[in-house]
């Protein structure tokens, strides 16, 4: 059968396998457990490795090993577990090891709860670990994008030799939708930089983030920043729906964007001009399009399941050229279609009808 019904978490796992991922290291935590469960069953079928580590810290360092040897490697967790991985993520960036990290976010801070949340945006996009670094961060909007974006994530991780994060949430991970799966790819771990033996070369490959001499460390950081600049220039992805003639542009990603879309389709039936700008990459952030829309006189509403995190990037992007309003639901609840509808209505100019 061409199409199958998959939970978002399963779609991520199978999408990774199809993209050539043959190593998974993780530690259980709700609401991402379907990923390791799926991998435990599936990896042996494709000759891959599934390993449940003794902790998240251990798992992320296993990622370092497999990635350094050129393998396509995945780890997944949920918010508190992702916090534990931060030191390892910083090391992976420093040593330029490609890998993919999935965060199926839940409510925080602390142990929090199992409810969906978008309050890990800062951690994902601004660097939760130490040092000057960036992750390429994808935010899927449906199960099909889970498959497509995790495939892309592996390609980009390798192209830039940098960790890539998929940031999603409990609802996106648990909902079931039809998906079309791409063919299974086999990707060779044989990379010119991988630590797979000298193979006749005079110098061994080295996977390391140490820059003990000041000038060496500066050189490493200059190299990294040049790479992040290339990513910022080339990797921005977003979906713009009806923004051109909109009076108000709503900015939202993931679960929030789904609720916003439902509210907007109701408003359009009432002839209201409302657009949706959905960042698909949270870093690099779609600054350019937001700046252009601001210059064209649009107003903005940002909807998030947080106290307001992505809204800061929207404000930076529009740079005082437009009014930005925020509507957030704190961890534990999801905005309803009616709440978003009402909020948009309150912001539309009088006589906003055609």
């Amino acid at each position, binding site marked *: *059968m061409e*199409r*199958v*019904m*998959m*939970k978002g978490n*399963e779609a991520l796992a*199978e999408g990774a396998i199809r993209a050539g991922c043959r190593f998974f290291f993780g530690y259980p935590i*709700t*609401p991402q457990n*379907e990923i390791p469960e799926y991998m435990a*069953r599936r990896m042996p079928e494709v000759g891959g490795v599934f390993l449940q580590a003794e902790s998240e810290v251990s798992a992320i360092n296993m990622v370092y090993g497999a990635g350094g040897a050129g393998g396509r490697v995945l780890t997944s967790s949920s918010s508190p577990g992702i916090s534990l991985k931060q030191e390892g993520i910083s090391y992976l960036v420093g040593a330029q090891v490609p890998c993919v990290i999935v965060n199926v976010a839940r409510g925080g801070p602390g142990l929090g*709860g*199992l*409810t969906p949340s978008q309050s890990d945006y800062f951690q994902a996009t601004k660097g939760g670990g130490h040092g000057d670094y960036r992750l390429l961060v994808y935010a899927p909007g449906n199960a099909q994008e889970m498959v497509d974006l995790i495939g892309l994530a592996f390609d980009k991780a390798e192209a830039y030799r940098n960790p890539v994060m998929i940031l999603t949430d*409990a*609802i996106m991970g*648990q*909902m*079931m*939708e*039809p998906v079309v799966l791409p063919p299974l790819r086999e990707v060779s771990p044989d990379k010119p930089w991988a630590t797979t033996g000298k193979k006749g070369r005079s110098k061994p490959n080295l996977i390391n983030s140490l820059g003990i001499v000041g000038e060496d460390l500066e050189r490493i950081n200059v190299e990294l920043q040049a790479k992040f600049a290339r990513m910022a220039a080339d990797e921005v992805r977003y979906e713009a729906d009806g923004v051109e003639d909109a009076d108000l542009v709503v900015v939202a990603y993931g*679960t929030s964007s*789904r*609720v916003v*879309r*439902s509210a907007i389709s109701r408003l359009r039936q009432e002839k209201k001009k409302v657009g949706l700008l959905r960042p698909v990459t949270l870093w690099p952030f779609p600054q350019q399009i937001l700046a252009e829309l601001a210059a064209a006189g649009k107003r903005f509403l940002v909807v998030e399941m947080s106290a307001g995190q992505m809204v800061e990037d929207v404000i930076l992007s529009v740079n005082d050229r437009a009014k930005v309003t925020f509507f957030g639901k704190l961890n534990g609840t*999801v*905005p*309803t*279609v*009616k709440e978003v509808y009402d909020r948009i209505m309150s912001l539309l100019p009088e006589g906003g009808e055609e």
Partner: protein
Amino acid sequence: MEAERITIFTGPFGSGKTEVAVNYALHLNRQGQRVGLVDLDIVNPYFRSRSLARQLKEEGIDLVSTQPGLEMADLPALSPRIFSFLQSPDRQVVFDVGGDPTGARVLGRFQPYFQATPYRLWLVVNPYRPGYQEPERLVKLAREVETASRLQINGLIDNSNLGQLTDRRVRAEGAELVTAAAERLRVPVVFRTYTDQALLTEPERAGPEPVFPLKLFMRPPWEGE
């Protein structure tokens, strides 16, 4: 569909057994039966019938699941009210049992009741779920569920669907696979579900092939108010 007093719906993870169980409980309720719905899904705290408690109560169905307030605790606990349901001879009891052989194991706890009271154990199947496209896989799963629960499956429920992309062809191709699995297991296909009357085949419309309408309760927030 004459009801035995106990009907157990089980099925692989994500097969739609909770939707089927809830709709079946409502169906019995509309026939004037006293119905108790038991949420025994110990596998997954999302999208399961506990979140429906209030709605079902309004319809007059008693739902038993985890203690109120612990719905999202991810720590299943069985309520003593399940025994009170099983001990009431005038009550229909519908079980929603989680997932897979692991989920079905909990049924062993009620073994003495199932031996004393006629029951039906129906396996809900959606062959569009990954890994279940082959009838052999369904047969294997059925045997595992029987071993774990110490009960016998006596019917398959064909819940072939691709969500909003479900069409006549999707149902027809799914039906072929489910029928093949049912033949291998030597059990009947009890009914085929549908959410839209327009997708029914002629034999289904005319009556010889049993169908069952589903009203979906577990919807994502963007499909709500």
